[in-house]
C-alpha cells in the first residue's frame, strides 16, 4: 500500500481529469438533453422526428464507438482540433462524445418526468393562454425537473463511470482508469492495492452523489 500511496499525486491527477470530464459533460449534456426533450414534445413534426432519431440512434450505439468516432473520425480523420495542446484537445473531444451520448439519457429521463405531470396542469396553463414555449418553460419543465432529480442523479453517476471510456484509443484522456492501467503495466506499485485505491476513489465520487440525489429528490418532490 505504501508504494501506491507514494504515487498518490498520479492518482489525484487521474481523478482530476475524471472530475473535469464529468463536470463539463454533465453541463453540456444537461443543456442538450433539455433541448432534445423540448424538440421531442414540440408542435413541429420534423423536430420531433429529429429528436427521436437522435436519441434512439445514439442511445443504442456503444459509448466506445461514439468516443472512437470523435477521436479517430472527427479529430484524426477530419483534422478538427479544439485546443493547441494534445491533452486538452482529446479532453474536449471526450467531453463532446460523452455529452452527445449522455444527453440521450437526460432527455429520456426528462420525458418520463413530463409524463408524470397531471394533465390538469397543462390544461390550466393553456386555458390561461400560455403559448407552447411559455407552457414548457413555466409549467412543464420546472415540474418535470423536480420529479426526475433521482433519475438524473443516476445518469450523472453513470456518466462519472463512463468517463473511463474516454481512455479509448484515439482519445486517451489521462483519466483515472488509464492512470490505473499505466500503474499496472509499469509495475511501480502492487496491482491489488492500486485497484482497491482507485476503486475507493470512484466510490468516493459515486456513493455520496447517490445519497445526495436521493435526499434532493425527496426534498424537491412535488407533493400531489
Amino acid at each position, binding site marked *: 500500500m505504501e508504494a501506491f500511496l507514494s504515487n498518490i499525486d498520479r492518482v489525484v491527477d487521474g481523478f482530476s481529469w475524471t472530475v473535469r470530464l464529468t463536470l463539463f459533460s454533465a453541463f453540456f449534456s444537461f443543456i442538450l438533453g433539455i433541448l432534445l426533450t423540448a424538440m421531442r414534445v414540440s408542435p413541429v413534426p420534423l423536430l420531433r422526428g429529429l429528436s*427521436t432519431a437522435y436519441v434512439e440512434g445514439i442511445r443504442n450505439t456503444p459509448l466506445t464507438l461514439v468516443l*472512437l468516432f470523435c477521436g479517430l473520425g472527427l479529430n484524426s480523420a477530419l483534422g478538427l482540433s479544439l485546443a493547441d495542446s494534445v491533452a486538452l484537445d482529446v479532453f474536449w473531444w471526450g467531453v463532446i462524445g460523452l455529452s452527445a451520448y449522455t444527453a440521450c439519457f437526460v432527455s*429520456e429521463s426528462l*420525458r418520463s418526468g413530463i409524463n408524470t405531470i397531471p394533465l390538469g396542469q397543462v390544461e390550466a396553463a393553456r386555458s390561461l393562454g400560455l403559448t*407552447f414555449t411559455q407552457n414548457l418553460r413555466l409549467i412543464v419543465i420546472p415540474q418535470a425537473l423536480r*420529479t426526475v432529480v433521482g433519475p438524473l442523479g443516476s445518469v450523472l453517476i*453513470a456518466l462519472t463511470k463512463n468517463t473511463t471510456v474516454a481512455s479509448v484509443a484515439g482519445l486517451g484522456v489521462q483519466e483515472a482508469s488509464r492512470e490505473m492501467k499505466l500503474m499496472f503495466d509499469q509495475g511501480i506499485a502492487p*496491482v491489488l492495492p492500486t485497484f482497491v485505491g482507485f476503486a475507493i476513489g470512484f466510490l468516493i465520487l459515486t456513493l455520496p452523489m447517490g445519497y445526495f440525489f436521493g435526499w434532493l429528490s425527496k426534498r424537491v418532490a412535488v407533493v400531489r
Partner: protein
Amino acid sequence: MSAQAVLFDVPGPKARLRNALYTVLTVFLALIGLAILYLGFNRTLSDRESPLFSAQTWAVNPAGQWAADKWEPFLRPETWTGYVIPGLQNTLTAALTASVLAILFGLVFGIGRLSERWWIRIPSGAVVEFFRGIPLLMLIFFTMALPIVAWQLFDIPTGTFQVTALVAVVTGLTLYNGSVLAEVFRAGILAVPKGQSEAAQAIGMSRTQTMWTILIPQAVTSMMPAIVAQLVVLLKDSALGYIIAFPELLRSFTLVATRESNVIPAAIICAVIYILINLSLSRIAIWLERRNARRGRPSAKATAAGGAPTAVDGVTGGLPVPTPSGTAAEPIVGDTLTDTRSDEEPRPEAGDDPEPGDGGSGSDSGSGSDGGSST
C-alpha cells in the same frame, strides 16, 4: 397524433405558418451541418484552392471518405466472412455468456440481500454496491492483471495461467451487470404483494419454499422487461472489449478501417449493426412490459428497490430510464385522459413514444406501431 395536442392546440393558420417556418429553418440548419460533415470527410473543407460553390469542391474526392472504393470493402464477401461475422460472433459469445452468468450472479446476490441472516445479507449488499459503484472498464483491467496479482501476492510465476481478453470481458460484464440485476431481482421480489408470503407462511411453508415456489415465479414476470433492458446494456458494454483488444465487432471494424483507411464508412456500418441489434432487443423489452400491463401486472424497476438511494443505473446509462417513483399520473405526451389505475401503469419509457399499451384504450393500439422510433 391527437396525443400531442395536450401540450399545444391544434395549430391554426398562424401556427401552421410558424411551424412551417421552423421546419424550413431546421431543414436549412440540418443541411448546413450535413454539408460540413460531407465536405470535411471529403477532404475539401479545408481545401482553400477551390471556392465553396464550385462543382470541384462538391464532387466526391477520391482521397476522401465518401469515395466509392472506401465503401467497396463492405461489398466484398471476404470483409464480412473475415472480419465482421467473426467479430459479431465474439460479441454475441461474450454477451450471451455474460448474460447467463450475470443472471445467476444477480439471483444469488439479489436473494442474498433479502436473507434474514445478517452474515449473508450484509456481504451480499457490500458486493453488489461495490461492483455497481466502480466503472466496468476498471474491472476488466483488473481481471486482465490477475496473473500479476497472483505473482505479487502468492509468488505464482507469471505464465502459469493467463487471462484471455474474452475471460476479462465476460468477468467484467458479469460482475457489473450481475450487480445491477441483483437489484432488479430484489425489487421484483419485494414488489410481490406481502399477502403472498404471509399466506405461504400461514400454510406452513419454509422461507426457502416461499421464496422459490411463491415469490420468484411471480416476480419473474414483472422483472422480465428490466432484465431484457439490462441485457441491452450488457451487449452495448461488450464493446469495451475493444480497449483490451478483444476481437469483437467494434474491433473488427477498426481493423477494416485501418486496413482500408475508411474510418467513416466503417463507423457508420458498425453503428447501424449495433443499433439494429439493440433496437430489436429493446422492442422485446417493450413488448414484455406492455404484455404485463395488459395483464394488469406492474413491471419492476431496478431503482424501485426501496432502501438506499443507490440509483447507480447502467454503466452506460442503463436502458430503463428509472421512473420517478411515487408521483404517478397520466402521461401527457402520448396519451389522452383515460385511465383510472395509473398507479400500476408502467410507463414504457424504455423505448418509443410513450404509448401506454394499456388494454383499456383499444383505440390507441393502432397508432402504437407507427408512433415508434424511426431509425
